[in-house]
């Protein structure tokens, strides 16, 4: 009889590792059917076969901005949005989604949308950019809308759950995005009407501004280490550009977000005729600290402060990525603060 210890024998260990290898290959290589790298292709193939067989029942077929083709057999009833702009756009088109991610840096839906009653029962599916796939599956959506910064891996996973479309890129103008989404959902009329209302509002505000038309407007997102100003391709910059209001020279830098926190000594860079300062939450540390900063002498020496032309605004509206309703709300803020009171 041959006796051998497992730990010593190279042959046995090689055999053992070979078993591991096979097991590993088995686990990883042998997957449940229908899911593989070509998931998207298969899904669109499925969609196209559906399309061939039920051609007369097709409601709409379109491509999103990444070129992914989606065929919907009927008007989608259950939509889920994974960004603030998408939520905003759907509400503007009169559609209420069934699920959404929280606003940027906030515990729930963006603050400026809290007034809309139809959002009371909406389901939260996670943080911005980190949706819980479990929740999404449970919601059984017909269509998922994402936008802004996209993670291809996440997109692939989302497309297994439901047709997922990317509705806008980071630097896109909200009007383009709105018309695009409206075209997909066959709500072009609503979108056109909304944009017309917006243009009218813009014109009327420009009239009301009077001599403030030439004022420079500085928009700042507050941070304890120092404020960061919004860059030129940010959402609020688009709205202000529609109003033909200038930004201070230092703030005319391209980019969709905001600058890193400025040194407090360079606070003059946020100065302008008007200063709009926002925080992401309405209370809490940031606001307290902002109020402290507002008592600092270096802040008091800003021209805008001395002219009493500083407005504290909702950061979730002004310093985030808003949409159509946000644009209207920004216009309202501008009217309330910048037009001379009669």
């Amino acid at each position: 009889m041959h006796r051998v210890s497992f730990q010593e024998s190279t042959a046995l260990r090689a055999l053992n590792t070979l078993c591991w290898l096979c097991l590993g290959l088995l686990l990883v290589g042998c997957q449940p059917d229908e899911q593989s790298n070509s998931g998207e292709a298969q899904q669109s193939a499925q969609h196209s076969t559906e399309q061939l067989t039920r051609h007369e029942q097709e409601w709409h077929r379109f491509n999103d901005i990444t070129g992914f083709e989606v065929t919907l057999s009927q008007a989608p009833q259950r939509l889920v949005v994974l960004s603030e702009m998408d939520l905003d756009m759907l509400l503007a088109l009169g559609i209420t989604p069934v699920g959404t991610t929280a606003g940027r840096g906030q515990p729930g839906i963006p603050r400026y949308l809290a007034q809309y009653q139809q959002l009371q029962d909406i389901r939260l599916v996670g943080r911005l950019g980190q949706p819980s796939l479990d929740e999404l599956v449970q919601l059984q959506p017909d269509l998922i809308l994402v936008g802004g910064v996209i993670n291809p891996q996440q997109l692939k996973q989302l497309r297994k759950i439901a047709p997922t479309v990317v509705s806008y890129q980071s630097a896109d103008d909200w009007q383009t995005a709105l018309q695009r989404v409206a075209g997909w959902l066959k709500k072009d009329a609503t979108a056109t009407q909304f944009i017309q209302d917006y243009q009218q509002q813009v014109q009327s505000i420009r009239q009301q501004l009077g001599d403030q038309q030439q004022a420079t407007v500085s928009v700042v997102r507050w941070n304890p280490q120092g404020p960061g100003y919004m860059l030129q391709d940010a959402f609020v910059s688009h709205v202000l550009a529609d109003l033909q209001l200038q930004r201070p020279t230092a703030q005319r830098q391209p980019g969709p977000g905001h600058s890193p926190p400025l040194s407090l000594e360079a606070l003059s860079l946020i100065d302008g005729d008007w200063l709009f300062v926002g925080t992401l939450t309405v209370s809490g540390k940031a606001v307290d600290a902002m109020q402290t900063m507002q008592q600092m002498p270096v802040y008091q020496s800003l021209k805008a402060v001395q002219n009493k032309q500083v407005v504290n605004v909702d950061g979730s509206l002004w310093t985030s990525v808003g949409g159509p309703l946000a644009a209207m709300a920004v216009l309202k803020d501008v009217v309330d603060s910048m037009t001379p009171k009669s």
Partner: protein
Amino acid sequence: MSTEKAVDRSLMTQRSAFWRCFLVFKQLLGLSSRDHSSWVNLLLLVFLMNGVLIVASMLVGAGYISLQDSLSYLRSLAIAPASIQPAEQLPATVSVVMETIRWPRTLAAILAGGSLGLAGALMQRITRNPIAEPGLLGINAGAALGVVAAIVFFAAEAGFPYMVGALIGALAGNMVIVFASHRVQAPISPLRLVLVGIAVNATGQGLTAMLLLTKQTVFDQFRFWILGSLAGIELDRVLAVLPFTIIGIVVALLLVRPLAALQLGDASATALGHQPNRTRLALSLVIALLAGSAVALTGPIAFLGLLAPFLARMLVRESTQGLLLMAFGLGSALLLAMDILGRWIMQPFEMPVGSMLVAVGAPLLIWLVRSKRLQPMVPGGRRS
């Protein structure tokens, strides 16, 4: 003697208040004003360097105040110290920036840097280990956790409440280190100490990350604070922390003799009439106080407690109190220098001072390890 007298006289004309304070300080320490051993002169030089750096810190900024304006502001201060009237030709912003931004920042750098340097020197003396420091050993992480927890659970304001949170956190971290290091009489191997530090650091950072993740609203602000930075510090915050730092320094200096006795080993120290365990306990409290006050001001900064005592040891070999004072002085000088650099290189934004210190401190640690300085400390064990 004559050169020293010449130095004295010139200092008297320019920094009279400072020199007088120093003389008084020397008397408090029990040194006569005639005691001009070499380390006192070196200490003097270090304080002088600090003075230069203070002036430089007041002159440099990430903003747009010209050098001439800053200089004339300082000159106006020096010439008429009693009545601080900014000259009419200077814009008001200059005095505002100087008083409310640069001065608190400079003061904070001195306090935080000095506290961390002193705490590092004390830790190295207690553990008889040249790489012990509050950052590496997780005390700073504990203090940071204390601050974040105070904010999240108690809605703490900056200033005194931060200090309390930081102190409790630093004490907790220190407790663990002390408990882990005092199990044996022999000097603890540097490795084991660092690994305990990594564990405490990781726990602290993990809990902090957890708190920040669950409170998204807090994450945005503390993203930068956690790196360690002097931006946005106000004078009342500095003044709230100042008493604690002073208490820490005074107690540390009072314990100089027992600390020196500790170096001889517990048995000899007891034979000399000291009580080593009580000394260690008291010094641990002082370390927690100093580290906590530094973190409450600036956020957790690592490697300063390593750099400053290392340089101090090169300059002062024989005297414990000299070493402690030198560590304080060098710590504040280092932090001031790093802060000035951070404000200068990325105008109008600022580089956090914590990142820059790591860039200097990490290579130093590597060099320390490779040189033979650590060899006598290691008991030669294979396991940790």
